[in-house]
């Protein structure tokens, strides 16, 4: 296992470098100009100056090399400097990856600023989805074709097929406009210091979490159900039942444990998606998270920001793939990596 891990970790490095190159090349080749979002009254000469100021007219290898250096050397150094409050070399002169849309602002600072909102909303939605989906999936499988199963299947179908922008709008109209229960503007600056502010935070994430949670729970519940159904007719289940164990014990100890193996893997693989945020949902509820950051950056042709955010997503996906494999090995003793 240890050797396997080392090998996997080592292969991550060339993979990531290849990914970074592809991302960089695609974005560089793609049409689009960061000055296109500027007012039409600005003359072409001025636009050219702005592009030059952003470093846009350098040749591709230079730009790529600069980004690699900024991202893999300068950014970690800055991170260490701020984390331990020390000075390494000439920190002032070291160029960090900075945004084009908000010139001078380091991209990493923007990402760090967005992280909490995304984790609160999308992360919470994911937890809610798991908490609902697993029990619903289990009961649906055991009581297959019962009323519960039928209703569950119906709701899953609805949850899966209705887009979040629709449920989101519906929620706003009902709970914000008509009932006035929840705010429709997400307050990024809200600090949780006491009971009241916690309640307020829960109120402002309630609607986006419900919308996203419903959507994700639908998928997970279907998956859990079918995984359970795969295991129910197995010989070991019959053996356990024959031994005279109570149904509850058989379901929880035997069927559920085996059925959860693929579900847990699926959950682990879904974690990077939490970080990438839910672009549409964030937009509707004004949660200024990572998804909103990425879409805004794409609209403005803010290439350094798009590059960095996309690369971080790629990194997370690679890492959580590894994590999923490792979890799989831990959960299922039959699988041995060598």
């Amino acid at each position: 296992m240890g050797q396997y891990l080392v090998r996997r970790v080592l292969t991550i490095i060339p993979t990531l470098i290849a990914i970074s190159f592809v991302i960089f090349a695609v974005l560089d080749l793609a049409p689009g100009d960061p000055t296109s979002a500027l007012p039409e009254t600005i003359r072409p000469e001025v636009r050219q100056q702005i592009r030059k100021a952003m470093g846009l007219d350098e040749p591709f290898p230079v730009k790529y090399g600069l980004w690699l250096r900024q991202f893999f050397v300068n950014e970690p150094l800055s991170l260490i400097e701020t984390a331990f409050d020390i000075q390494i070399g000439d920190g002032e002169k070291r160029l960090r990856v900075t945004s084009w849309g908000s010139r001078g602002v380091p991209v990493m600072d923007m990402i760090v600023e967005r992280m909490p909102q995304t984790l609160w909303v999308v992360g919470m939605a994911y937890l809610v989805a798991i908490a609902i989906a697993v029990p619903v999936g289990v009961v649906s499988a055991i009581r297959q074709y019962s009323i519960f199963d039928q209703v569950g299947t119906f709701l899953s179908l609805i949850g899966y097929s209705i887009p979040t922008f629709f449920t989101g709008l519906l929620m706003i109209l009902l709970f914000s406009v008509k009932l006035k229960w929840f705010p429709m503007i997400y307050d990024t600056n809200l600090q949780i210091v006491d009971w009241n502010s916690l309640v307020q935070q829960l109120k402002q994430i309630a609607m986006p979490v419900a919308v996203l949670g419903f959507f994700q729970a639908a998928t997970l519940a279907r998956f859990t159900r079918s995984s359970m159904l795969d295991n129910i007719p197995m010989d070991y289940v019959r053996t356990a039942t024959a031994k005279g164990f109570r149904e509850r014990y058989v379901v929880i100890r035997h069927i559920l444990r085996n059925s959860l193996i693929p579900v847990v893997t699926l959950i682990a693989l879904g974690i990077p998606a939490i970080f990438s945020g839910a672009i549409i949902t964030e937009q509707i509820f004004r949660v200024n998270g990572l998804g909103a950051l990425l879409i805004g950056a794409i609209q403005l042709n803010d290439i350094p920001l798009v590059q960095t955010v996309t690369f971080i997503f790629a990194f997370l996906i690679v890492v959580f793939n590894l994590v999923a494999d490792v979890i799989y090995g831990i959960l299922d003793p039959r699988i041995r990596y060598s």
Partner: protein
Amino acid sequence: MMGKNISSLRIIALLLAMAFLLAACPAAAPTGGEGMAADEEMAEEEVMEEESKVLTILYWQAASLPGPYLSGGTKDQDAGAITLEPLANYDPNGTIVPRLAVEIPTIENGGVSEDLMSITWTLKEGLLWSDGSDVTAEDVVFTWQYCSDEATGCTASEAFLGIESVEALDDRTIKITFDSPTPYPYNAFVGANTPIISSVQFADCVGAAAQTCNEQNTAPLGTGPYRIIDFKVNDVAVYERNPHYHGEPTYFDTVIFKGGGDAASAARAVLETGEADYAWNLQVEPDILRDMEAAGLGRVVSAFAGYVERVLINQTNPHSDLGDDRSEYMEGDNPHPFLTFPPIPQAMSMAIDRNLISEQLYGFAGQPTCNVIPAPLHYVSDSNDSCLTQDIDGANALLDENDVLDTDGDGIREYNGVPLKLSYQTSTNSVRQKTQALLRQWWLQIGIETELINHDASVFFGGDPNSPDTYQKFYTDLQMYTTGPTIDPQQHLSNWICEQIPMRENSWGGGNIFRGCSAEFDALFEQLTQTPVGPEREALVKQLNDINVQNNYQIPLVYRGEVSAHLDTLKGVWINGWDSQMWNVGEWHR
């Protein structure tokens, strides 16, 4: 049994660990925030209001940076305008009002030189930056240097064109020298697109270094009513009352400038839930907006600058038989077969119900107009106002009188044997297509048939010299779009001189899109470029407007504005189309 127990514990432990990770990250978040207990939930809870008076402004496009110099959007300019100030502002009528300056320099008070080569501004006494340091003339000079340095990549450098030097004569006096006589010397340092920045704070941020000044760019010192205490890029900016402000202290303690979302939900947040005090640029269907306003919480307000939706009448022949010569001016040798006969376009203009178009299709964002220069007020001619009433009978009579008759009985009139059939293009946009359909219907009632065409905006306005569908090539009889003058109309009017006619030779580069050439217009325009601001200049602009409209080069339809909304409880809002909508935010109160 034992082994199984342990591994099920593992699953639980893993899930718990995941949950903990998710919960732990947000918990660390507030340390990154600011030391203030801003509370946006203020609409309903009056108790909160007593503690802290908060103004919440909603922009559905979030600000990238506060200030106009490194990021050119209105959102950025407006986020800056809450704290940054220019020497003078434009008020909603287009009048220049002093801000940091003592008074507006004119030729009469000696501030503008007789030869129109320089302007001298004087700062108010005792101005302070929001950190308490002194504002001096050097700051103004520095602002010019900062923005005109090519390496800065300044998005507002347009306003400093034609300036040879900016000097500080003493601590409070600034002299701007132009490289040629400039009848309108108020482009630089007037309006929210050229505010003054601190020479001390930005000293190391000139040129290429501007790209690395994170702290300065996101929290510039200002002289305005509020000062920035927190700026989250593309999200939210928080301001507090500026204790060093030169004006009356503000009513609100805190301003929250929140971005993101979409226009319709921004309107809803003000008009239906009252969560925000002010929402900007509500591009929402007029009916929907009216319904929201009916909820009774707030009102919709409109800001007008100079934009006019209008129909351009091709003065040259665009017939496809002409091949490459279609819509070519050819020194006047290729006139349009019937649109250059004045009664025809006159009748077309008379047949239009401009009130209906502006009310039904534009709602709060439109007013009917008969002028191509619709504002500022002192430049607006009133000699064309008769067009505001639709007169189909009059139009028919006018055509009959001039022998433009339907001779073959197909319902379409002919002129010199040519049937009055028109092609009419515009960009693809639901409001524009509805306007087209209305005009087509009215013109049919006076015996003129119209073929409606629309092109995707990126093609129509794209300017690709290889595409036949651009507005510059104008291969149709009529086309419709919006442009408008800036506060001083000279630049806009310069488009309509004969020299500016687009043609093959200049790769369709000119601004005289309708291809109308009038010697009278050119002569008056030449005079305009040498006439300083004053009644004489105003009269000239009105004349130029009238020539353009009365020569039937363009049919103005709707004077277009921008729509915002604010709560009824918010007082002091005076929405401004010429300057930032935030121009008088310091005077807002409840």
